[in-house]
């Protein structure tokens, strides 16, 4: 069942020239986690705020659990939407304790039931024992857990998370990512997570929507987004990619680094670019080789080599962390693309 549906949503901020969202259609299935991924300023936070009811689109419809909450003219106010929101800066109430923060949205419950709900949710997020602390007495990770607990307490239909890990230290980030994933799994709640970090999106989401300048580039599962991006923008944004020029001849794509299957059936003579990920390229020293090593970045788990082809084109190759060749080494390339992704050459 589609829990959240956006169809044809457009939104322009006052005094802005370009629309923040342009004819955007998206849906989220019940129980799934959708990640909205894109560079800063692409409109991803605006999508979240429109779902929550803080922004009012000028066109298009938004439905939550089948109910029309926005039709481009009238909007249901945030307090009547039943969404839980976790802000980037957590937005904890500084004048309330952890317990009071979490109980804030539980006023319709009897005091006893509210207290039980708070205890239950504190256990869920692992904050038992911190009931009477004020927000400023908590660490960043603890503050975030309170923010999530507070959003989950009134049992919202959907949990919206805006860059939830960006304010955490890098070592804390990985741990919180796993914890939040576990909380989402255990509650089975539908979630929408906004992020600019593709690793975060890959790790957390069932589906990823890539946004660029207010437009939807692609919605797909994480593997497809990485392996078969539908636009050069997506290909570049979700990981290292090189675009190797080639030409379709006799049903094959001929490039400087080898011949590839013409899987999408471009007509004979088409100039195309083929996307190559570093993990598709393997290098072995050879003399004389066809290419030369121009640079190496040690990344801990891998060595990322920059290889210069005779035409001046660069390719990247990911090699084992222990495989070290000096710069200038002459090499032979083996390109084994698992997924052949081609784009008609941009002019």
């Amino acid at each position, binding site marked *: 069942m589609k829990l959240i549906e956006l169809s044809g949503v457009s939104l322009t901020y006052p005094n802005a020239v370009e629309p923040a969202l342009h004819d955007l259609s998206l849906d989220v299935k019940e129980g799934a986690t959708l990640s909205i991924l894109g560079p800063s300023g692409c409109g991803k936070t605006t999508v979240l705020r429109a779902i929550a*009811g803080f922004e009012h689109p000028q066109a298009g419809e938004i439905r939550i659990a089948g109910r029309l909450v926005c039709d481009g003219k009238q909007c249901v106010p945030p307090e009547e939407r039943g969404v*839980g929101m976790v802000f980037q*800066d957590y937005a904890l*109430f500084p*004048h*309330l304790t952890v317990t009071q923060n979490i109980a*804030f*949205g539980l006023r319709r419950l009897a005091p006893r039931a509210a207290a039980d709900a708070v205890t239950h949710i504190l256990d869920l997020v692992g904050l038992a024992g911190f009931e009477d602390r004020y927000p400023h007495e908590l660490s960043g990770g603890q503050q975030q857990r309170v923010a999530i607990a507070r959003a989950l307490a009134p049992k919202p239909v959907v949990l919206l998370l805006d*860059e939830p890990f960006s304010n955490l230290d890098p070592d804390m980030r990985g741990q919180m990512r796993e914890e939040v994933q576990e909380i989402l799994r255990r509650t089975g709640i539908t979630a929408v997570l906004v992020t600019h970090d593709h690793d975060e999106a890959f790790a957390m989401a069932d589906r990823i929507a890539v946004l660029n300048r207010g437009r939807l580039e692609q919605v797909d599962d994480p593997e497809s987004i990485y392996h078969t991006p539908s636009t050069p923008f997506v290909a570049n944004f979700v990981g290292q990619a090189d675009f190797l020029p080639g030409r379709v001849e006799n049903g094959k794509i001929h490039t400087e680094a080898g011949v590839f299957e013409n899987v999408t059936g471009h007509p004979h003579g088409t100039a195309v670019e083929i996307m190559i990920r570093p993990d598709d390229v393997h290098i072995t020293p050879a003399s004389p080789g066809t290419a030369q090593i121009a640079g190496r970045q040690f990344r801990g788990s891998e060595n990322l080599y920059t290889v210069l082809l005779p035409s001046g084109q660069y390719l990247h190759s990911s090699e084992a962390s222990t495989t070290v060749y000096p710069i200038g080494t002459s090499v032979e390339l083996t390109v084994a693309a698992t997924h052949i992704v081609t784009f008609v050459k941009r002019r």
Partner: protein
Amino acid sequence: MTQAAPMTLARPAPAASGWFAQAGAIALLAGVGLLILPPLLYLASSAIQAGTLGTLSIGSLAGLALTTLALAALATVWAMLLALPLAWLVVRTDLPFRNVCRWLAVVPLAIPSYIGAMAYIALLGPVGSLNAWLAALTGSHQQWMNIYGFWGGVFVLGLFTYPYIFLLASAALEATNPSVEETARSLGEGPLGVLRRVTLPMLRPSIMAGGLLVFLYALSDFGSLSLLRVHVFTTAIYHQLNTRFDQAAAAMLSFVLVLLTLAVLVGQHALLSRRSYVTITGTARVARPVPLGRWRWPAVLLAGGILGLSVFVPLGVLIAQTGTAGQFLDVLGEQWSFIKNSLALAGAAATLAMIVGFLIAFSAKRATGNTGAALLGTIQMGYAIPGTVLGLSLILLYNTYLPWLYGTAGVLVLAYLIRFLTQSVQGIDAALAGINPHLEEAARSLAASPGAVLRRVLAPLVRPTLFAVWTLVFISAMKELDATLLLRPAGFDTLPVRVYIHTVEAEYGKAGALALLLIAFTALPWLVVTRLRDKKLV
């Protein structure tokens, strides 16, 4: 998207020539202590030695305490009622003219409360304009309106002190992270619920701090309450001293008033330390203005009403009472010697406060142990003493021990220094704290002596601040009435004293002209300083 936390700088470590600075700090502490503490101690000992209440009874003392506290409390509530809706309207809504309103809302700070009282007496007093108009209109000489008394005091004090609360509350409203309020919306609260459960509680510390300023102001004010004929501690002290010549009773009343003030300060300290919380901010986003919709014009009416009562009506009355430009100049010519007195006194006090303030702030920073804190604490005490009480203590002390100083203009300069030194010290202290300690260390490593560091590095860096604190103390001293009234040498009147005297004698034309001049003298320097501050020159 995240905003970097403001850079915090460590306090400079005590310099290598510590003993020198330490000796200087102790000498300054002794000097400041001798300036501030003996008057207070002598006041206490006079009160205790007298042992009797003189012409006072316990009952009248209790009655006085009740009236004073009730007046201060009601004035504070009234100021909050004026300040909070205005702050919310100008910061958070699409109120028309909100930028103009925001600017106008601080103008009452440039109108001393005794001038506000004078304006309202000229308008609503027994022989004021309103009664005159109504008499002309109806032909009956009945007294329609009389602002004298307790409620008049509450009305005027709240009206001219609400900017203290407005400034703090609007700054806090502006700094509030909008996502905190949005969270409350997503958790099921409507706009009013958010205001009640989130916005107001988060503003509580600022409202309390502003309210405390108003309360202390009301507790210590003499000028406006005396003009409005309200019987509170300060007016009773003046009455005992000047009409009944009962110094013992005046000392006893002052002593009780100081204790009351201290109790308020101690209570505030306890309250703030018990429940403290820090607002966690870190957002560059500004809350979107709330659309007022059909409440737009009622809101304009409300804001206009508040600003009308506190800015336009008093200024209008002053201008109307003054009459023509010719009449204005005549008054200035006639009273020129008093204007000169005011300028000379305020200039001397400001210069002295600036120099002493710099030395104190500098050595408090260098001093080890608690010397620095003791120094700053003593100076703050001088600020907390009501002007009337300070005047009385100086009379008692100097009359007995330094009769050659009593009855000179010098005693006025000393009184201003005691009252306003803290403004200078706090300003310079903050400026020094903002100077990167590495600058000093860099200068030392380039072979500059501590004296050269002070002269070549620190002084140029705080020079804009020195200018600002000079102006601040100048303004405060220009406006000072309560202590001046008791301490001035015979015939040596100042502008505020003349405004007071002419108001008492119902010569509102003269009072109005001098009040306008006084407002100009205080508002113009303030405008210059804020202008320079906006341009980052101060």
